[in-house]
């Protein structure tokens, strides 16, 4: 496909922590196009996080290839993968993972700073995103003074600030109450639409699944279903 962002070819991964091999991912083929809003669903231990880690270049498959934007990341060296992640992938974690000693704005511009972006460009981009997520008046306060939902929105801004190829979000609503979770999902859907940003979530949260345009279901490391909702976004 011309606008394919992520293409996995027959990837497998087996963990062997106790001497007993445990297959985490088995022969997964998957194509994700630019601008998709995808939920990876499945019960605990189904391989969602492992698949996200491999797509994100944090973990290597035992076999198969992962092509991101035309580049095979499975053959990359560790240092190249770090650079690749920095310039191509945005991450949102379950536990927010903001740096507590930095303000919301400093956290949000962290990746752009690592990319050595100029101050004016950083500030312009951060201000736009903070306005979009409704946190412009909170940008100079530290994470501890923000609610869980607000912290996760800052994490989303951080992931989007550098305009990555796609955003990987591992259980982004797991630590949020319903209101905050819906709020976050609305915001991500809005950013998906406005910025044509590709989002891939791992989740077993029904609220997220209902909002997703495409749902890929994993069971025991294998894709058992891949459905797309073609109705217009609400």
């Amino acid at each position, binding site marked *: 496909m011309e606008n394919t962002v992520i293409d996995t070819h027959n990837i497998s991964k087996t963990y062997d922590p106790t001497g007993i091999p445990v297959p985490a991912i088995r022969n997964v083929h998957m194509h994700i196009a630019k601008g998709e809003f995808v939920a990876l669903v499945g019960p605990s231990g189904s391989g969602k996080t492992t698949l996200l*880690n491999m797509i*994100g270049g*944090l*973990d290597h498959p035992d076999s198969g290839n992962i092509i991101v934007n035309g580049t095979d990341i499975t053959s990359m060296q560790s*240092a190249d993968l*770090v*650079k690749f*992640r*920095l*310039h191509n*992938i945005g*991450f949102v*974690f379950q*536990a927010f*993972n903001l*740096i*507590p*000693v*930095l303000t919301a704005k*400093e956290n949000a511009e*962290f*990746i752009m*700073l*690592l*990319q050595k972006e100029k101050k004016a460009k950083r500030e312009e981009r951060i201000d736009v995103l903070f306005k979009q997520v409704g946190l412009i008046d909170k940008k100079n306060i530290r994470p501890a003074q923000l609610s869980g939902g607000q912290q996760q929105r800052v994490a989303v801004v*951080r992931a989007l600030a550098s305009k990555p190829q796609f955003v990987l979000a591992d259980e982004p609503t797991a630590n949020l109450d319903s209101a905050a979770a819906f709020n976050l999902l609305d915001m991500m859907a809005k950013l998906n639409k406005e910025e044509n940003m590709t989002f891939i979530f791992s989740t077993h949260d029904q609220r997220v699944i209902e909002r997703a345009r495409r749902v890929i279901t994993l069971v025991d490391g294998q894709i058992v279903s891949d459905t797309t909702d073609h109705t217009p976004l609400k």
Partner: protein
Amino acid sequence: MIIRLAWRNIWRNKMRSMVIIASVTAGLFAGMAIMALYKGMMKSRIRTVIDTETGHVQLHAKGFMGDLDPKLFIQGDEKMIAFLSGDKSIKAIAQRTITAGMVSTPNGSSGVSIIGISPVEETNVSGLGKKMREGKMDWPPKTRGILMGKKLAKKLKIAVGEKVVITMTDTADNLISSAYRMQGIYQSANAPLDEVNVYISRKDLQDMLGLSNQVHEIAIVLQDDTLLNHTVQQLAHQYPSLAVESWKEISPETSLMAETVDTLSYIILVIILIALSFGIMNTMMMSILERRHEIGMMMALGMGRSPLLILIMTETFFLTLTGIPIALAIGTTVIEHYAKKGMDLSGMGKEMMESFGFETMIYPDFPSDKIGFIILLVFATALVSSIVPILKSLRLDPVSALQK
């Protein structure tokens, strides 16, 4: 950003960081205080050597200092004295006639250096008059008086007014003895010298040795310590037949001791810093273990090895170097206070210090000439302390670090 993040990171656990900064401050202060004390002691010792023992420069006939042969006296010394007295860089001179001999009393005898002096000259050069503890220094022309150090007088169990016999070999190699009366007991800061140097009238000694007005030693005190090298070179050029030696050559043990003490103070500082480096390393390791999840997240987001290395190293440097200005401020204040007031160390072994030729009242001297090197050592400590935490953080696997 990395500098800001590093600075804020060290204050996450204020108490822990304060403890390590206080340790660095205390260690540095201790190192500076030891250096200042040693420097003060050595300055005092060198001052004692110059002002009370050797003067700045001494002139002898070549070979005289080997076995104090009385036949090796300075030739043409009257012209020389006139020349030296006219030199504006010279503050005072003392002519001495010297020989090796023996002092005997009914209680025992001891080998000594018998030094013939002029009381006025000697007081100007070595301050002998100020060292008198019993009796008096000036002797009437017709009384054969002897001045003896307190330690020797105690050893020979002799008091002022009692008789002693001194024995020596004259310039014709005849063994001669003569009775003297104890006229005074002196005490200097150098107990070993007090045990071997006895003083009599220069005229008496010249008569006994069969000399006319010749002397064996001319001790010179200069107007300023900085004139030393120039004066030694000038006199050596002027009197090539004489041995012209500075105090460093006459008292090499003092010069060596100054260098040794300098090295020793550096060794002590290095030991203090090595001990501190373990504390700093431990603090950094704890900090990294506590932030394992966060560091894993930063690596996942795309933080490479270089920025991570710089972050951990900067944190270690902040933790270590923050103590420097505090230690300098405390060190300067305390050392300057005692530099004026002095530290009385007599309670820590007066006799032992005197046996090594040290005064017991020490005026510490701030080691300003060594500050640059001290700061360099602290930088090195920070660098060494950061190695293990850096390796630990660079080896983190982001996937396992992100798992709770």
